[in-house]
């Protein structure tokens, strides 16, 4: 240790800017930290890509021939078009597990004491993580869209509509990372957060209109599927991408008739609800 540099003058830490601006800058600092970590542990990102790519290939070629989409007549490629929005939506919700595991890991390492003893905004540790996951989700979606295009998927209603569809998907993914954040704060290990983040996603994504039309389900499942927050985004994307067959009978349920609005409402409600709970839980772990 050299003594050539002078110690910084003893002053209180620069006054926190406080309020909203500080919570934005703190969250960005934390997002940067998480993105650097993701870059240095690329395995996680790569495995996150392989799984949805496998789904695209499996569903289009294995189930593709045997699932009939109403209104598509005998067009064999109709299911492939119909399917993609479902896989996109399922993929973005898998970010739940990553966010949960990351936060569970942070909470049980000494580093969290450093963050808690700093005059930083209280929600920033969580918001930073969810923002980093949003970036990862966006990256995954780009790769997935390319793979989907390779197997024949197209967006038929113009660039703006396509972008709007991807925007809704990102918002849904972001909303789900807040569910993951709450799970991560509740369980004791990252492994538990991963399984806790995934287990309920399977019924949620399968009892929906993501992979099969709801018309073929028993009527009580049909109701669940049509009001499922996940279905709203899937239908909105199919609409915006022009992926419904021309004569597809859209169900009468309100979210199915107004899918874009329903998707927005669901995502915002999920964010508000789970973010509030998660930040409160994070705070209660300290003074």
């Amino acid at each position, binding site marked *: 240790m050299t003594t050539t540099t002078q110690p910084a003058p003893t002053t209180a830490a620069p006054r926190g800017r406080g309020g909203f601006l500080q919570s934005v800058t703190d969250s960005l600092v934390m997002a940067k930290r998480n993105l650097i970590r993701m870059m240095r542990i690329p395995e996680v990102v790569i495995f996150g890509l392989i799984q949805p790519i496998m789904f695209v290939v499996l569903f289009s070629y294995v189930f593709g021939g045997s699932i009939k989409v109403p209104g598509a007549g005998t067009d064999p490629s109709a299911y492939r078009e119909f399917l993609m929005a479902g896989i996109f939506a399922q993929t973005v919700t898998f970010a739940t597990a990553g966010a949960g595991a990351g936060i569970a890991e942070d909470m049980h390492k000494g580093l969290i004491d450093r963050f808690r003893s700093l*005059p930083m905004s209280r929600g920033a540790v969580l918001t930073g993580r969810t923002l980093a996951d949003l970036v990862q989700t966006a990256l995954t979606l780009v790769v997935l869209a390319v793979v989907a295009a390779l197997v024949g998927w197209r967006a038929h209603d113009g660039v703006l509509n396509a972008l709007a569809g991807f925007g809704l998907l990102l918002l849904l993914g972001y909303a789900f990372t807040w569910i993951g954040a709450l799970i991560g704060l509740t369980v004791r290990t990252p492994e538990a957060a991963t399984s806790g983040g995934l287990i309920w996603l399977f019924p949620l994504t399968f009892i929906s209109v993501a992979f099969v039309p709801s018309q073929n389900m028993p009527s009580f499942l049909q109701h669940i599927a049509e009001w499922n927050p996940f279905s709203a985004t899937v239908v909105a994307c199919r609409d915006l991408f022009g992926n419904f067959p021309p004569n597809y009978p859209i169900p009468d349920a309100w979210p199915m008739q107004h899918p874009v609005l329903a998707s927005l409402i669901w995502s915002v409600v999920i964010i508000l609800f789970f973010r509030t709970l998660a930040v409160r839980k994070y705070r209660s772990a300290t*003074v």
Partner: protein
Amino acid sequence: MPGAIYAEGLVKTFGDVRALDGVDLDVPEGTVLGLLGPNGAGKTTAVRVLTTLLRPDSGTAVVAGIDVLKNPTAVRRSIGLSGQFAAVDEYLTGRENLQMVGQLYQMSGRDAKKRACELLDRFNLADAADRTAKTYSGGMRRRLDLAAALVVSPPVMFMDEPTTGLDPRNRQGLWEVIEELVAGGTTLLLTTQYLEEADRLAHDIAVVDHGKVIARGTSDQLKAQTGGERIEVVVHEREHIAPARGILERHQLGGTSQGGCTVEEHTRKLTVPVSGGAKLLAEVIRELDTAGIEIDDIGLRRPTLDDVFITLTGHAAEDEPELKADAKPGTEEAAK
């Protein structure tokens, strides 16, 4: 007016364990308090309460004039913490770690960068600055953590065993850093297992055991309380014990009447409490020599903080192994 760190009646229990059992502390501004105590005494728990990481069951704590329980956010602006276990992000480089902390203290990106550079130099981490902390040795992590605690030089600092795991040169270096900080007006609460460190850095020392402060004072006061200085003499002939005792008692602390000289017959060792240092020792040697008493060994012994520590906290440490020794055969029997 209460000091920069003030605590009254802090209690914190974890299940059956009373980690803090009514701790009172008062550290005047610009001074260093050394918190000593055996493992599990409650030192880390006290630090965690004072740095807003843990809510006590009862009691009050005021840091930098701000109530820790009522306004933790404001307290966080005025403190720096280096905890017992290094709190660094393993996947970030040393530089990135420090920049991140700077930015979370609301520094601009440029200031944070500059400060990170200074600290990396200061803590001998410049060569490893751009390696991830995962690749650091234990002592390097420790230093990175200390650097992170010093990013803004806040008015009140807490360091929980800051030099554990540091090599002697880096320990010396950290002591210098701490001395500079304190010269600049920083108030510091430091826990340590190295009594030499407390002796050198701390103005006041509080000894904690079982969640209570069992002794406090300056290092000298505590040493005096444990017995002050003594002269120890080993005489060559058994017959010389009595005359030697006469001479020693004439010089003992508080006059002849005290009868404070202790004698171990079989080792021919006499010990007497004194105050007068080397000068008195020389005089005693002359008198013993004049009286024709042959001495094998003579010395002036001052109690160290180790003596203080062991005297004050020794009982607990001696009792427990006995209990375990008793219990053990029983459990082995049961196991069969």
